[in-house]
């Protein structure tokens, strides 16, 4: 390594006098153009050298055959990656959907190839890209943070306009003088010896790098260690709160104390001139299904409201039943089923997984002793109230379904009961002969 005759202001390696000139790594030859580089590479290859490489700022057309480099096997690696990904994607979906956790979604099959193609395709692309990216790293021996040629000052131009050939000393044909002559004959504008750093410490990884690797590896294991500990021990300590401001929000809930206001309450009273939700719902039967009787006791109505709040007449007619059927089919059928017998998709899934829960049969008629047929025996107002407020496992639908539609559903439930407990007398006399 002879940096002194360059005239650069880069200081010469300071350790050289202490450790001697350093082991010869090889010869570095610079060429003027990509064409000369290619010709030189060809001559070096034809001279029988194998341990050499070309360096250029950009890919040079035809350098691979000039250097005698075989075609990369990267495409095969990518194909393998893509194929594995596609099959793996299919296998994943089969395992999740059709094997480990079969789940009835609207009666669709759990295993269906067309539906699985997009995921398989994406997985195929993903692994093909990974194989391409990391395969390229491995094929190019990356990541390589340092190379002996970096010690040569001229070599810095390799990212700009320099074209180089480096022949390593470990090549069987390497002979400092002959090799130099070959490179010069091939048109090199400069040939320089390149030596390894003579300091023995340079051959080892710096201690601080090792320390960083060990420390970061240990650090990365901490979450796993905590999770493992938590799974295998009992503790009376409270949870670790990773996001305390989410767990303990700076707010007051209703009906709690608060020092800020004179009355010491977190609640603020009604603001003058405003009306709270529900205050305008004066028609008790229409909005709750019940009205106070003469004794001041709430009694559920057995009939229907007589008018809508806006003054229209409330008529139990075909239009109301059609509306009721429409709303019922949207909101009620998932549990109660289309016929109201309690055999909707949700109870079916429960049964598939061995559960016993079943939705109420809305259409059931009471037997001679008056048992069963719970809904049929309820006054209309109570059915309305159950829809509004919910009952047992059923949540209230008051917030989702407007009151008028809830009454329409009540009417439709009555129609379902009537239809499923009909007798011959319900059929028009002239049509009875058609029944077999």
């Amino acid at each position, binding site marked *: 390594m002879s940096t002194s005759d360059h005239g650069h202001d880069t200081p010469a390696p300071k350790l050289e006098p202490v450790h001697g000139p350093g082991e010869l790594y090889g010869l570095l030859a610079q060429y003027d153009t*990509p064409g000369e580089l290619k010709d030189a590479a060809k001559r070096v290859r034809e001279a029988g050298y194998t341990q050499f490489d070309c360096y250029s700022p*950009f*890919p040079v*057309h035809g350098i691979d055959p000039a250097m005698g480099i075989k075609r990369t096997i990267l495409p095969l690696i990518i*194909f393998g990656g893509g194929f594995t990904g596609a099959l793996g994607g299919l296998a994943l979906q089969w395992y999740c959907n059709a094997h480990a956790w079969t789940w009835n979604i609207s009666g669709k099959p759990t295993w269906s190839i*067309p*539906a699985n193609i997009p995921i398989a395709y994406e997985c195929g692309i993903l692994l093909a890209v990974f194989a391409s990216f990391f395969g390229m790293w491995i094929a190019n021996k990356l990541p390589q943070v340092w190379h002996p040629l970096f010690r040569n000052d001229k070599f810095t131009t390799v990212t700009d306009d320099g074209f180089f050939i480096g022949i390593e000393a470990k090549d069987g044909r390497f002979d400092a003088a002959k090799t130099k002559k070959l490179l010069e004959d091939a048109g090199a504008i400069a040939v320089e010896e390149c030596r390894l750093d003579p300091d023995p410490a340079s051959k080892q990884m710096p201690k601080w790098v090792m320390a960083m690797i060990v420390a970061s590896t240990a650090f990365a294991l901490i979450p796993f260690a905590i999770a493992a500990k938590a799974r295998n021990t009992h503790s009376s300590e409270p949870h670790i709160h990773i996001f305390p401001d989410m767990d303990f929000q700076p707010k007051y809930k209703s009906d709690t104390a608060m020092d800020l206001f004179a009355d010491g309450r977190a609640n603020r009273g009604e603001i003058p001139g405003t009306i709270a939700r529900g205050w305008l719902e004066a028609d008790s039967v229409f909005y709750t299904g019940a009205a106070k009787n003469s004794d001041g006791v709430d009694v559920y109505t057995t009939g229907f409201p007589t008018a809508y709040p806006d003054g229209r007449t409330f008529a139990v007619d075909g239009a109301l039943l059609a509306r009721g059927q429409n709303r019922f089919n949207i909101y009620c059928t998932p549990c109660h089923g289309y016929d109201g017998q309690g055999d909707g998709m949700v109870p079916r899934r429960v049964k598939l997984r061995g559960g016993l829960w079943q939705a109420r049969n809305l259409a059931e008629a009471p037997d001679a002793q008056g048992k069963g047929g719970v809904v049929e025996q309820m006054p209309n107002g109570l059915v309305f109230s159950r829809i509004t407020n919910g009952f047992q496992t059923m949540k209230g639908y008051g917030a989702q379904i407007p009151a008028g539609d809830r009454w329409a559903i009540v009417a439709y439930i009555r129609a379902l009961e009537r239809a499923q407990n009909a007798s011959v007398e319900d059929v028009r006399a002239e049509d009875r002969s058609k029944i077999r």
Partner: protein
Amino acid sequence: MSYPTKTLHPDEKIKAGDLGKKISRVGAGIAVVGLAISLVLTMSSGADPAAAGHVSKWSRFLHAYVIGWSYIASISIGMMWLILLHYLVRGRWVTVVRRLCEAMASAFPVVWIVGLGFVLPVLAGNKDLYYWTTDAAHDPILNHALAHKLGWLSPGFWGVRYIAYGAIYSGLAWYFAKKSREQDESGDAKITDHLRVVAGPGMILFAFTTCFLAFDVLMSLLPKWYSTIYGVSFWASGCVGAFSALALLVLYTQRTGRLVHSINEEHYHDIGKWMFSFTFFWAYTAFSQFMLQWYGNLPEETVFYKYRMFGDWQWMSIAILVGYWAFPFVFLMSRWTKRIKTTLVFFAVWQLVFHWIDLYWNVMPNYDWSVHDGLNVGPLAGPIANHHVGLSGVDVTVWIAMIGFLLVGIGRNLKGNLIPVKDPTLGLSLAHEQL
């Protein structure tokens, strides 16, 4: 990065000479014989057209005609697209084969005239090809779903659009070929710059035109059906055919001793790459269309697949999946299948056949007009079992006649220089190399 360049080989034969005349003559022979056999077959046919809901025997001939015409039109259109793309992205490798591409794209006027064979009957009141021309289609009760489409699908307006398509494709092809030949004389590099500017709006025009052509000619055979990706799929399938045809045309030109020094395996490799990518892209669009309609399960969309997924046609669907996509996809993926001429030619011919099968699969299930009633009475009704693939001789002879017409169209344009000798990208194209 510096690109290597080369100059034209001094011994290169670049004059077309009698090449075009030969191709035209063979094409004319094929077309005349094919058409004559088709007419004889149609007139002597014993099949009962009423069984499929039609009035005359010509219905089958017209359906076959639409398939064959779409086949040659899509090939010509596909090459127009390559020319536009070449200028739009400052392409280089195409330059050496561009005259051949231009010849294929410039075949469109001939293709357009041939298309009058099914357009004129429709304009003259034929009600056996397009369901939207029938009286039943205009029944507002029976075909409520069609009522709002009949303004667009009226023979007069449809015919006007056919004229527009012809003008746009022919105009684009003519303009690009003309300017390129002007450059052969003047050597003016500005012509290339100019065409690069034209290619941008040209590409947009091309995209819309191709989409609407596919809607009007092919998709309106099943007028109650909806698919927005249909035009893309038609174009992608057409490009598979176009690049396959280009490979064969280049090879034949070299067989006659022309361009032997200029076009080498590097260029074949690129043609093969396009065959490969459009094979995949076609499958991608076709699957996108299928996937959404199958999953959405709406009757006005699934009607298309209902008649192709069950009965006889499902075997053809599977054959297309395997033959048009899986098999060529796996083999064209390799570098060597594209560089060895034998394998490239094999797949070019293979894909050209399957391109026709794909169009056949698109059109022929609509031949039995119970498909249109199927949508009226419900998504699962309709006699699927009656739908047979039922390949008839006319289907094939019309197709062959159409190939003849395409050859006539191509041959007409093979004259003068077969290579754009003064194109500024020619040197780069000659030295083209796959990294």
